[in-house]
């Protein structure tokens, strides 16, 4: 069923763009259908999952290769599905009233959001690391398109590229980590990996790489810069991708792997240091924002750090806390995003210093936002409070086996500090957005319709109800905790009241400190302005992108100069360095038999070969040095006829006859062409001095390389010739000439290919000549050229045939 649900998303996404033309923004109601179906189906699976029986599905892809796509819906996955499909469908309903009919590319937007939903669903329900990676990158791609929705704006495009490069780049590191893990364990099934974590020298490295990918996706410091920039996307997109679901992908992965890998060396230090730093830095930044959406974005960064710290603990209590916190954050953050979106939509601005009296004009919205902000701040009786109580419980001294009392206390202290700041920015957001300020003029704007507000109110109710009745969420959290491997089952339940305990004390202290902070906020803002900026990796990102561009340009400038001779020299150089270097190295390390050391080496078979070789070699070298065209041509002719002699000595009369014919014709054609050209080769563009010598050295080395490889490979030949059986066949075929038989009988199809080449060349040459007659009649198409070209064109097919008939060796050959 799980794969079918993902396929349903894709099918709906395909029909959305044409529907959007008719329905306008209401197309999002159609888009919500697959999400609702998924949420409904997941709800039906709930009883089984609570009993510890996850829903599974398996798609055999290539079972022979061990490629089976496994899916499973367990408690953690169900928590994520509640965010993806549950909150998602509400956001889609909201989007149907958020966008105006004139919004550009509505169909694409709706389709991409549904595709994103499918990819995200895939991430959380797949049980295979490689499939997870594919779905993971699909969410990245969808996010890229969605952030860049306003593709006519430069900042939109830039933010999209930034998010893509950051998350996909680190995603590649994650893939390497996955491969290392899979190779070490011999399986890519996540459930098997977690149940029986591999050991080995590479596993810590794999863990670091996987965490790097997860941290980039979940916007951990210092890679958090892409998330606030991504707020250029439309508000429903921000609420869905960059608050409720996608950024939680990293947290999900950490939570998924933590039971198996929390004991691995670098895991806990990395999770704690990056998570805690992210929580404090994000909250600190959120306090400075005046734009409600940006405040929420930095708040999300902060909460993601918090979630990472929880998810990474890997203890059963952390399992409970993570489920509660994932749900709490999903509910309150999407409520607040949507509320800010409503303000932006109605009032026309979301800058808090320009808003006044919004709470009086829109009391329902203000109440819903107050509930959500209270949940974010961790106030009872809301889900945020219940979750935060559980969160503190995770790092109480003695509750985490790998941490000392001092270590736990330090973690708790930083968590409390982050929570105080969280309280501060929650209050700031609500206060700034909804209160009436004397110094700001109120604007006139229409009030929001009930359908537009309904999703916000429903989400706010979701912040409140599980807080009042934690037993709504507790079974799910317990079911997830039960999957953790640590033997001792936790005697902890989500509740509003645990008695007088340290977590309660911390909550009271945090609330009190938060109130003090908010009362003294002006002084705090001044302190912030005086404090230095926190470092982030955005500078590094820009340096990296700039370095890539300038390296590419530098390489292009040096190598791609537009000069064909230079390109060919580079290719020759590569030939010398890569295979040439390998050849010399293997000769030197005697990985290759040195030909001279054995065999029947001799200078020549007959002295005639020496004479012929001298003719060929000397005339070739002289042709290179010749500045005049005609002598060069004649020297080349000498080379060709020398070759004929070599063929004769080597027992190949057919070749010699054919070559004589071809050489003669080539000479005639060359003379026809050269007749029109200047007597000397142009000297203007010739290389002189060192470049010329360098070229000569490179070419000489390339010649030596070819000769060396030839010698080594002929010496290494151990198999008999492929033509051994041809002798008997020749008797039946009725010809005495084996070469002729091969061409005309055994390999006749190859000969047809050869003729095709010749015909093509003939047509090409003829067309060049005809074009010449039509266009260039006055400057060069006189009778000399006109006569020369048709001769060529006519002769080629004939030559092809004659060449072969020559090789029949008998009576009717060259006649």
């Amino acid at each position, binding site marked *: 069923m799980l794969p079918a649900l993902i396929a349903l998303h894709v099918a709906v996404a395909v029909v959305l763009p044409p529907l959007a033309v008719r329905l306008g923004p209401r197309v999002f109601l159609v888009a919500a259908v697959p999400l609702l179906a998924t949420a409904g189906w997941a709800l039906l699976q709930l009883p089984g999952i609570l009993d510890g029986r996850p829903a599974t599905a398996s798609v055999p892809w290539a079972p022979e290769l061990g490629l089976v796509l496994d899916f499973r819906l367990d408690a953690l996955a169900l928590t994520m599905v509640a965010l993806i499909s549950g909150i998602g469908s509400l956001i889609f309903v909201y989007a149907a009233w958020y966008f105006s009919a004139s919004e550009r590319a509505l169909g694409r937007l709706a389709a991409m959001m549904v595709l994103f939903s499918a990819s995200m669903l895939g991430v959380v329900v797949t049980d295979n690391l490689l499939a997870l990676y594919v779905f993971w990158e699909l969410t990245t791609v969808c996010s890229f398109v969605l952030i860049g929705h306003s593709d006519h704006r430069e900042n939109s495009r830039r933010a999209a590229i930034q998010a893509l490069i950051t998350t996909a780049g680190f995603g590649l590191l994650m893939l390497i980590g996955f491969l290392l893990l899979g190779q070490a364990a011999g399986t890519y099934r996540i459930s098997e990996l977690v149940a029986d974590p591999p050991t080995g020298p590479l596993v810590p490295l794999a863990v670091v790489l996987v965490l790097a990918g997860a941290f980039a996706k979940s916007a951990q410091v210092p890679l958090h810069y892409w998330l606030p920039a991504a707020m250029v996307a439309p508000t429903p997109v921000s609420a869905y991708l960059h608050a409720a679901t996608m950024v939680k992908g990293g947290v999900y992965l950490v939570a998924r792997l933590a039971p198996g890998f929390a004991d691995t060396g670098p895991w806990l230090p990395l999770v704690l240091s990056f998570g805690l730093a992210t929580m404090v830095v994000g909250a600190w930044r959120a306090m400075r924002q005046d734009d409600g959406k940006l405040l929420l974005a930095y708040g999300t960064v902060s909460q993601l750090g918090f979630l990472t710290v929880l998810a990474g603990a890997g203890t059963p209590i952390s399992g409970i806390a993570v489920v509660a916190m994932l749900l709490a954050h999903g509910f309150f953050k999407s409520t607040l995003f949507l509320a800010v979106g409503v303000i932006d939509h109605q009032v026309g601005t979301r800058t808090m210093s320009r808003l006044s009296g919004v709470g009086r004009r829109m009391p329902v919205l203000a109440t819903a936002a107050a509930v959500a902000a209270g949940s974010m701040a961790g106030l009872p009786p809301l889900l945020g409070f219940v979750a935060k109580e559980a969160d503190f419980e995770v790092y109480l001294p003695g509750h985490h086996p790998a941490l000392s009392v001092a270590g736990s206390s330090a973690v708790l202290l930083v968590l409390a500090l982050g929570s105080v700041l969280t309280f501060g920015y929650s209050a700031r957001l609500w206060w700034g957005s909804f209160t009436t300020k004397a110094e700001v003029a109120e604007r006139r704007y229409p009030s929001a319709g009930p359908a537009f507000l309904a999703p916000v109110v429903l989400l706010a109710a979701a912040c409140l109800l599980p807080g009042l009745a934690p037993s709504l969420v507790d079974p799910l959290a317990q079911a997830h905790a039960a999957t953790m491997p640590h033997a001792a089952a936790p005697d902890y339940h989500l509740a509003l009241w645990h008695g007088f305990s340290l977590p309660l004390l911390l909550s009271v202290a945090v609330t009190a400190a938060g109130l003090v902070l908010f009362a003294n906020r002006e002084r705090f803002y001044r302190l912030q302005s005086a404090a230095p900026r926190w470092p982030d990796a955005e500078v590094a990102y820009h340096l990296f992108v700039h370095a890539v561009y300038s390296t590419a340009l530098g390489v292009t400038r040096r190598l791609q100069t537009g000069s064909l001779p230079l390109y060919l020299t580079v290719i020759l150089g590569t030939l010398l360095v890569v295979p040439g270097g390998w050849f010399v190295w293997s000769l030197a390390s005697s990985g290759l038999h040195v030909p001279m050391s054995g065999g029947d080496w001799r200078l020549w078979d007959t002295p005639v070969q020496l004479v012929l070789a001298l003719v060929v070699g000397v005339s070739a070298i002289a042709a290179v040095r010749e500045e005049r065209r005609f002598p060069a041509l004649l020297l080349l002719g000498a080379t060709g006829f020398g070759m004929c002699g070599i063929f004769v000595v080597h027992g190949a009369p057919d070749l010699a006859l054919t070559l004589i014919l071809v050489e003669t014709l080539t000479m005639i054609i060359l003379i026809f062409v050269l007749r029109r050209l200047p007597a000397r080769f142009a000297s203007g563009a*010739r290389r002189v001095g060192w470049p010329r010598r360098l070229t000569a050295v490179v070419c000489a080395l390339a010649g030596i390389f070819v000769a060396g490889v030839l010698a080594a490979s002929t010496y290494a030949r151990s198999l008999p010739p492929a033509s051994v059986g041809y002798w008997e066949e020749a008797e039946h075929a009725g010809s005495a000439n084996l070469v002729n038989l091969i061409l005309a009988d055994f390999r006749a199809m190859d000969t047809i290919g050869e003729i095709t080449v010749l015909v093509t060349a003939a047509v090409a040459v003829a067309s060049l000549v005809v074009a010449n007659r039509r266009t260039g009649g006055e400057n060069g198409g006189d009778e000399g050229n006109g006569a020369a070209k048709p001769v060529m064109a006519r002769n080629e097919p004939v030559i092809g045939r004659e060449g072969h008939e020559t090789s029949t060796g008998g009576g009717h050959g060259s006649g």
Partner: protein
Amino acid sequence: MNTPALVLVITVGVLYGTGFYLLVQRSLMRVVLGILLLGHGSNLALLLTDGGAALPPLLGDAGEGRIADPLPHAMILTAIVITFGVTTFLLALAYRVWLGDENDEVPDDIEDRRIGALAEPEDSA
């Protein structure tokens, strides 16, 4: 008799070296000559895969002595003819270039030059 005579191996090297050298010249006519030399070099290399000198692969002559492997011969025959086709085509091209601008030189690619001349990346601030 697998190994070829040394002078012929050296000849192959010389043909390739000189062929490469002509190939990287500016004058199209020299490029064509270079391709001819490379063709000769390749044909000779193919021939040498059979080892040393031998008798022609003709039935009936196969008395005493070694008979040459006919397969490289068939390949070389094909190669000779195709080299001829390519050469003619290149000559026609060289001739056309000369008709156009009164020299037969390979000009630089303007578009490549333009990319190389870009001073600053377009999207990295």
